[in-house]
Structure formats: structure tokens, C-alpha cells
């Protein structure tokens, strides 16, 4: 039984490498989880501040120092799952910054264990001050 705070998002070493390269090229970054068709259900990586966070966005946590956001109505359906940001070879569409590298960020999910679910880190809703 753990009493440690459970974080909602994590990142694989391969995705960390890609984030490091993108940071070197673009500076600070942010993520916003998309829904919808085509490249929906994939995380989008932008230069920090490029995507305007609204009052309906939820901050799930940080990966490699980058904020990871999702719209609150989508979060309703996702909140019981832990998300790991991974990367896979592939030609994604969308405006996500890693696309020209021939790789695509993707989400791997698992259900929180009951003891993890009791110690989830609180989320922040809306833009940061």
C-alpha cells in the first residue's frame, strides 16, 4: 500500500528523447490531448503558449517539464486511467511538432490501481496565472 501521490501522466524514455530534441529546436513545449477524427485521440505537442488554454482545459501534470492538458469534458471519461506518452514511428498529420521527424507521440493507458486512485494528484482547471 502506497501513500505516495499518484501522478496521472508519465513518459517513456523514447518519448523523452524526442521531447528533448524538440525542446532544443523550439524552446519550451506544451501538450494538449486531442479528441475527434483522423489524428484525434493523439497528444499534440506545441511550443509553449502556442495553443491558448481556455477555462475548460484541465492540467493533468507535467512530462519532462512540459504541461499536459486536456479538455475537461474529455477528462471526465479519461480520469480513471493513467496515461503514458510514448512515441512510435509513423507519419501523423496535425500540427504537432514531432511530425517532421517521422515519429508520432501516442498515448498508452492503464487503469489506476485502487490504492493509486485514492492518492491522485489534484488537477488544475483553466489557464495558469
Amino acid at each position, binding site marked *: 500500500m502506497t501513500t505516495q501521490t499518484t501522478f496521472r501522466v508519465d513518459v517513456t524514455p523514447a518519448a523523452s528523447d524526442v521531447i528533448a530534441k524538440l525542446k532544443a529546436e523550439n524552446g519550451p513545449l506544451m501538450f*494538449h*490531448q*486531442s*479528441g*475527434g*477524427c*483522423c*489524428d*484525434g*485521440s*493523439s497528444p*499534440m505537442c*506545441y511550443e509553449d503558449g*502556442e*495553443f*491558448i488554454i481556455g477555462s475548460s482545459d484541465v492540467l493533468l501534470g507535467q512530462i519532462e517539464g512540459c504541461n499536459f492538458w486536456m*479538455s475537461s*469534458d*474529455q477528462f471526465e*471519461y*479519461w480520469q480513471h*486511467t493513467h496515461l503514458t506518452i510514448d512515441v*512510435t*514511428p*509513423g*507519419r*501523423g*498529420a*496535425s*500540427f*504537432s*511538432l514531432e*511530425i*517532421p521527424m*517521422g515519429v*508520432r507521440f*501516442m*498515448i*498508452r*493507458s*492503464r*487503469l489506476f490501481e485502487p490504492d493509486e486512485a485514492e492518492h491522485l494528484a489534484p488537477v488544475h482547471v483553466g489557464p495558469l496565472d
Partner: protein
Amino acid sequence: MQTAEAPSKIMPRPMFKTQYENYIGGKWVPPIGGEYFDNQSPVDGSLIAKMPRSKAADVDLAVAAAQKAFETWSKTSATERSKVLLQIADVIEQNLEFLARVETVENGKALRETMAADLPLCVDHFRYFAGVIRAEEGSATELNADTLSLIIKEPIGIVGQIIPWNFPLLMATWKLAPALAAGCCVVIKPAEQTPTSLAVLFELLEGIVPAGVVNIIQGFGPEAGKPLAQHKGINKVAFTGETTTGRLIMQYASENLNPVTMELGGKSPNIFMKSVGDADDEFFDKCVEGAVMFALNQGEICTCPSRLLVHEDIYDKFIERVIARTKAIKLGHPLDPETMMGAQASNDQYEKILSYIDIGKQEGAEVLTGGGPADSVEGGYYIQPTIFKGHNKMRIFQEEIFGPVLSVTTFKDADEAVAIANDTLYGLGAGFWSRDAHELYTIPRQIQAGRVWVNCYHDYPAHAPFGGYKKSGFGRENHLMMLNHYRQVKNLLISYSKNKLGFF
């Protein structure tokens, strides 16, 4: 004479050039930076061609070419524009099988679908918009004896269009046909997964579409799509894709106070009422097919009927037949005319779909059939058509997987069916199946979706408006009302009075 081996039924792969260019001002123009990217086929991972890796400077050239062409194209008569659209349709029709093979190799979808759906629909949509602009009229209203109000439709200007990869030619057609019909000039960016089909089509169209009226910019979203969406020379943006990108494009459009149209996907419910099971007849068979429509285009359709809602009293009988029909789907090489389901469009889609199958299993959904990858052609991205039984709060019921994955649940009455159907962020498509003439009208009216197919599914005729409610976006394509998304209204308010007002 017999040969040892049966002849291959696989249709020949079309010949591609080794490299394509951007299409700007009626010319094939290399990208300024001189960079190209490999376009690989999801059928077997083979190289199709090298495509331009365009940047902002290339977009500038394309927008300038469109602006120049707009000076004359915007003044052409409906007769002239209609003729161009009809010629485009004729060329597609004359090259239908060739273009179907091109699209199949590029996207991975089965040839029987590109032959029977994608390309014939392209032909018809161009002809539809060629037709409606000949029949359309503005209006004149005499407001009083001396004052006449003339309403005249004018093209909005230069349109930026960002096209998805699931129907490379049909999605381009849905956006190009009304824009050209309205008198707009276009800068269009195909998806980077499927950039070649549109280039091949426009090679066939040389000499038909006047220079600069359609400009094709190839490249990656953050490098070419973003500068297009942000461009100050653009007057309108049309986008089909995902929600986060949709919000970002609206944000860019707001900087220029540009209007946008958005088609952002769905999680469409497909509802089968108790009366469906009243007889085992032709209609029951049609209903079974309607449920299996989730596998059309490998599930890569914004309106994929990915949530199957079945009345609990007919569930066992109905799902048994749906599973049997799903198992009978013939996977194989997409260029084999008998193949019913081909490859997913790219490796990242393939990985994403498998990750959803994984979370579905973790959440306790029961796999009724499928549930993993398929090995149709080495090097390609194939997934078994998969059916899960679960409940509507599971992530596989709420997120657009964009793959051949169906999530099934039951309901006990019409109210519960409607409640489940509307318990989604999206509202693009829905299916409703019943033998009861009364509920055929009343229940679909309660479903929050822009298109409800009643006793049918996945039909996309021109002249039937298509677009979303809720987070599925806004704007209505495939119908003459789309013309107004590409136009301004000019009002001439004319006075015939010779007398002054008397204010000054």
C-alpha cells in the same frame, strides 16, 4: 492450358513518378528549400514517391498565385465555372479505375471501396455543384416604391483547405467543388500520409482548371499547414480533422477575423430497435450489414458507427449474426478486388488502434471477435475487425479510435437508447433502425447529430447536407448550403427617388 499457379487477382499497382512537386499557379514547382519526404504505402510499406516538404515561403507563393487568379476567376460566369467542374468530373470518370488504384495504394483501403464509393462520389459531387450554380438565383426585394434591395452572392476570396487522409480524393472534392463553384481560389494542403493522390489527379486535370485557381501545397502540418491556416492572405479556412487542431486553427483564424468550417469527427451511435428482430427477412439482413458498417474503410471514417446499441430482447439473436458477418469480412491485399478490408493508413494509426484494443480489454470489455493485428500483407498495417461488449462510460465507447473497432451495449427502451446515444462529446452521425413507422421519425429527432441515417448507414449523396453538432464541428458540406460558407452576401440598396431626405 493450365498453369501451376492460379493467376494473381491483385490489380496492378499504378506507375508513380519518383518525385512530385507543389502545384502553384498552374505549374509544378519544387519547394524553395529543396527538401522532400518519402510517401510510403500502408499496403506493404513500399515507397510511393518523394513529396515536397514545403514551408511558409512556399505557402506565400501559393497564396500569391491564388490571389492573382482570383482577379479573373471571381468574375467568371456560373456557366464557365460549371463547365470546369463538369470537365473535372469527366476526367475523374474516364480515369476512375486508375485513380481508384492510386488511392488504394496510398491509403490502404480496399479497391472495391475506392471503385464503388470514393471515386464515383467524387464525380457526382463535382457534377452536383456544377448543376446547382446554374439553377441558383440571388434575390431582389422592393422595400418600398423607391427602394430596391438586391442580394448578390460574391466569392469570399482565397480559401485555405486542410484535407484528411482517410478519403484523399473525396475529402478534397467535398472542399474543392463548392469553393470553385462559388468562385473562390484555393490553396489546399493534403494530409502528409496521403499527399500523392491529389497530385496525380491534378496532372490529369492540366489545361482544365485555370492557373492559380487551385494550388496544392505538400508538406507537414507544423511546417506547411500552420502557415496556411495563419496566412493573412487567406479569407477563409476549411478543416477536417481532430478537435485540438480545430481549436488551434480557429485561434489562428480569429487573428485575421476569418470564418472557418470544421468537421472534427464523432463517436456515432447505431441503434437497433426491438422491431428489427420481428422477422428474419431481407430487412433483418440489411440491419446486420448496417451494424457491420463499422468496418467500412477500416473504420477510418469520422462517422464510423462505432457504438452499437441493441435492444436487449433481440441482442443475442442479432449479435450472433453481426459476429458471423464480421468474421466473414475478407482481409487481404487492398488491390485484390475481392478484399473487403484493407490496411490502416499509417503505422501510428495502427499502434493507436492496438493501444485502444488494449485499454478496452483492461477496462473489462469482452472481446466478441477479433482483438488484435492481422497479417494480410507483409510490411503493411492490418488489424482484425474487432467487436467489444461493454458499457458507454468505457473509453472505447467515448473516443474515436478511427479503426475497425466496434463497442456494443444494450438498452431496454427508447429513452435509454437516446440517453446512451447522446452521452458523447460528439454529434456527427447516427444510425437508427426500426420497423415501427412512428418511431422512425420521433426518435431520430431526439438524437443530437447532424446526420441521422434511418434504416441505412454510410450513404453520402450530394444534395444531403452533412456536418456536426457539439464537438463534431460546424458547417454543412455536400449541399448547396456549403456555397454560402465560401461566399459573402453583397447587398445593393438602390434608391429610385429623386428627392432628398431633408436632414441637411
